[in-house]
């Protein structure tokens, strides 16, 4: 049985109740406790700063050169909060409802409600830190609307919302490193988790400049290490995003939930060549004015301007007349993939669809479109060299967000005691599909408001500063040293990058937007073969000090194991829900068909040994929201 520790009582009072009854530590005693925080994105920075403000000792680790470079920095669109500043009928309740529905009824009600509830204070906090959100001329905060909802609850700072929120959190963190109890360890990678008697007691860390491996001890460990969408190689994530911290924790006993639920963003730029290393996201807001289409004819070689109106298929408008080009992400992405797969794809690699502003420009004028999207059109030009005022943009779905992650209970604690997992690294609030602008929020509230209380509650029951047995310490250190030495010693002929690319293509084509049993089985055996080849053919250049190839190789090694679990998870779930679409389970109209009777649970995986997984189930109860079919027709 999985214990979620959801407090009793009405959903509106659960969090208040929790806070009122959770255990506290006297301010003078807090400094005796040390917490390790891995990751300095929104979740990690905010948690570390807040814990230090409370008086705890906090050791922060990130592989980045500066905490400010964490991938939260790249989020563009905005952050949701149920402030109801627009008087358009928004409320905590409505946000809760939208999120549960958006997640296709595969998230935990109590967690989602709490996220919506904490959203109000988060905006207050960010403003107080100096985050320059967009304002009306009157000086009040401005909002816009985002996909999948009918109210305007998104706060934004031009197209750089993540950057601005991260600056707020980073500055709070840096302030604590100067005047508080934070000690910062940049260019350190967490290589393993230290677990003593099912309690997280520290991490194995590698100094990436010197290569030195050390054991870092603490009374609790927080992983805020972000998403692993980069496993698909081509993704909207930064080059160094990885799964290693959570995967290593998983191998030490922490359960992994819904690993295969990955969101593919519908408006990314397509791959243009084999050399390509990442895909850039174009803001979803473009779908407000751009119309998405493909040629009706298969393999149509004509330039878009030569294709007459009646030979274009505006497939989203055709299939979803009421939401049209603004259909939710999972649906839009899948529809694009279907067009590409059925030979209607466009662009040099025939892997894209058109996003066309011709009609919007004719209707509102070029100046109006430039005012709305000028910076995005410029960015498009910078990357592709093409002018979107004159020809339609090329867009394509790309791996973007991990709904899956380490399983956590209501306290954001994994089944390993004292291991807290925050932000995109955990599985909690987004179910099988995340709504736009909800993940910056989740990362922030996890860090600023939730973990601070739940970590204190945990620490209150722990004796501080218990030293780990020296024998365990030296064994753990050796284990990691040996692991890296082994990778260096293979001396094959294939780089880590090549393995990663191969794995990415395999996963994208066989366990991506559309999944199917025989293909998944194929993927499984191919991943196993790739794993074998990795240990035989890997080539890593010499050197323990600054050696980016060695870092990469260790991450790819972990990806190869996680990939197998992803496929296992996709195979096991014989239904379609949110981003997980099994070809065998669709309605007559080709939409995702859930099977609530048999699959209304979160799949929670345990690794028994390498490549052998055991399934546990967290049954989902919907007490407050009526489970229904998610329709956007």
């Amino acid at each position, binding site marked *: 049985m999985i214990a979620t520790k959801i407090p009793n009582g009405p959903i509106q009072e659960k969090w208040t109740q929790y806070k009122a009854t959770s255990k506290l530590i006297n301010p003078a005693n807090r400094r005796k406790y040390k917490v390790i925080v891995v990751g300095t994105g929104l979740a990690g920075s905010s948690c570390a700063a807040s814990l230090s403000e409370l008086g705890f000792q906090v050791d922060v680790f990130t592989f980045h050169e500066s905490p400010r470079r964490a991938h939260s*920095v790249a989020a563009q669109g905005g952050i949701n909060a149920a402030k109801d500043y627009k008087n358009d009928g928004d409320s905590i309740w409505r946000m809760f409802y939208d999120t549960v529905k958006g997640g296709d009824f595969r998230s935990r009600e109590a967690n989602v409600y709490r996220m919506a509830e904490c959203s109000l204070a988060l905006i207050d906090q960010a403003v107080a830190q100096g985050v320059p959100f967009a304002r009306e001329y009157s000086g009040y905060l401005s909002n816009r609307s985002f996909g999948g909802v009918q109210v305007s609850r998104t706060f934004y700072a031009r197209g750089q919302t993540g950057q601005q929120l991260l600056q707020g959190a980073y500055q709070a963190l840096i302030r604590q490193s100067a005047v508080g109890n934070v000690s910062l360890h940049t260019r350190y990678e967490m290589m393993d988790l230290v677990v003593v008697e099912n309690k997280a007691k520290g991490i194995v860390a590698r100094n990436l400049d010197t290569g030195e491996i050390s054991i870092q001890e603490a009374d609790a460990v927080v992983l805020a290490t972000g998403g692993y969408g980069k496993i698909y190689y081509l993704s909207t994530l930064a080059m160094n995003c990885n799964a290693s911290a959570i995967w290593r924790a998983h191998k030490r006993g922490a359960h992994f939930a819904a690993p295969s639920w990955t969101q593919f963003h519908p408006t990314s730029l397509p791959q243009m*060549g084999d050399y390509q290393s990442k895909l850039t996201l174009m803001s979803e807001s473009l779908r407000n004015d751009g119309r998405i289409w493909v040629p009706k004819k298969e393999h149509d070689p004509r330039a878009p301007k030569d294709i007459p109106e009646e030979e274009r298929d505006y497939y989203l408008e055709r299939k979803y007349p009421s939401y049209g080009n603004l259909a939710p992400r999972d649906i839009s992405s899948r529809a694009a993939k279907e067009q590409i797969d059925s030979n209607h794809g466009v662009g040099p690699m025939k892997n894209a669809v058109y996003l066309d502003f011709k009609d919007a420009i004719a209707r509102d004028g070029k100046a109006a479109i430039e005012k709305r999207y000028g910076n995005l059109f410029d960015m498009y030009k910078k990357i592709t060299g093409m002018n979107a005022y004159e020809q339609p943009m090329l867009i394509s779905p790309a791996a973007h967000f991990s709904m899956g992650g380490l399983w956590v209970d209501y306290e954001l604690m994994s089944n390993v005691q004292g291991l807290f997992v925050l932000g995109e690294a955990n599985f909690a609030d987004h179910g099988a599909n995340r709504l736009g602008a909800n993940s910056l929020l989740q990362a922030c509230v996890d860090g600023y408001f939730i973990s601070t209380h739940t970590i204190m509650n945990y620490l209150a029951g722990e004796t501080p500063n218990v030293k780990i047995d020296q024998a365990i310490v030296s064994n753990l250190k050796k284990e990691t040293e040996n692991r890296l030495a082994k990778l260096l010693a293979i001396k094959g002929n294939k780089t880590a990058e090549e393995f990663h690319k191969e794995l990415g293509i395999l996963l994208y084509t066989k366990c991506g937007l559309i999944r199917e049993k025989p293909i998944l089985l194929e993927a499984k055996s191919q991943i196993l073969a790739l794993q074998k080849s990795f240990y035989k053919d890997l080539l890593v250049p010499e050197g323990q000090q600054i050696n980016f190839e060695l870092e990469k190789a260790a991450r790819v090694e972990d990806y190869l194991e996680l990939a197998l679990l992803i496929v296992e998870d996709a195979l096991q779930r014989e239904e379609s829900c949110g981003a997980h679409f099994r070809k065998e389970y669709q309605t007559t109209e080709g939409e995702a068909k859930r099977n609530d009777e048999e699959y209304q649970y979160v799949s929670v995986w345990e690794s028994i040994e390498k490549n052998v997984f055991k399934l546990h189930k967290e049954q989902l109860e919907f007490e407050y929201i009526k489970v229904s079919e998610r329709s956007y027709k």
Partner: protein
Amino acid sequence: MKLTLQVWRQASAKAKGGFEKYALEGLDENMSVPEMLDFLNEKLIKEGKDPVAFESDCREGICGQCGIAINGHVQSPEKRATTCQTHLRSFRDGDEIHLEPFRAAAFPIKKDLCIDRTALDRIISKGGFIGVNTGQAPEANSILIGHETAEAAFDAAACIGCGACVAVCKNASAALFTGAKISHLSMLPQGKLESKTRVQQMVAQMDEEGFGSCTFTGACEKVCPQGISVAHIVTMNREFWKS
């Protein structure tokens, strides 16, 4: 596409560095500069040679990690672009291109194209923040900020912390970086209270780290990928004299 690269190679902080030449063929004009370096590195690794150490992360111009000098242009020969936003179509087939790390006493070279910019974090640590703890914030709309002020604050806060302003400056001054943060925070009502100590401490830290002083050449504004204006240096100086 063919290019000849002259890449700065330096084994470690203390080692002596120099340019090394690599002739590359089969490049694609749509490759970004880091993708070209990936291409070079794959080749070097296969040849049993040490790959070029360089850093990049977001590869979309926002994390501030990737900056190097390309043919002497800090970040990029293109306007308002980072190294990762520079594509090979900016060069002609057959060109020779020099790639070297940002140079400044306060940014020691660690290896090849990698530098240490933690001095910038230390400047921020001396007051580049508003001293609000979690939980203390008043209701967001109780702090009114005019549209223009919010936009101007954003312009200053858009800094990606890449250090290009320092690298291009003949004095290796961090005035634009520091000025932008001081200006961002002192412009906002919630940041005014700490203005005095902020500017004094941050300016002192700038000196401590070995950054030079600003002689107002304006070179920094020209290479800033976010187009941050030198007007923020004026604001900083004004705040400094006020304090």
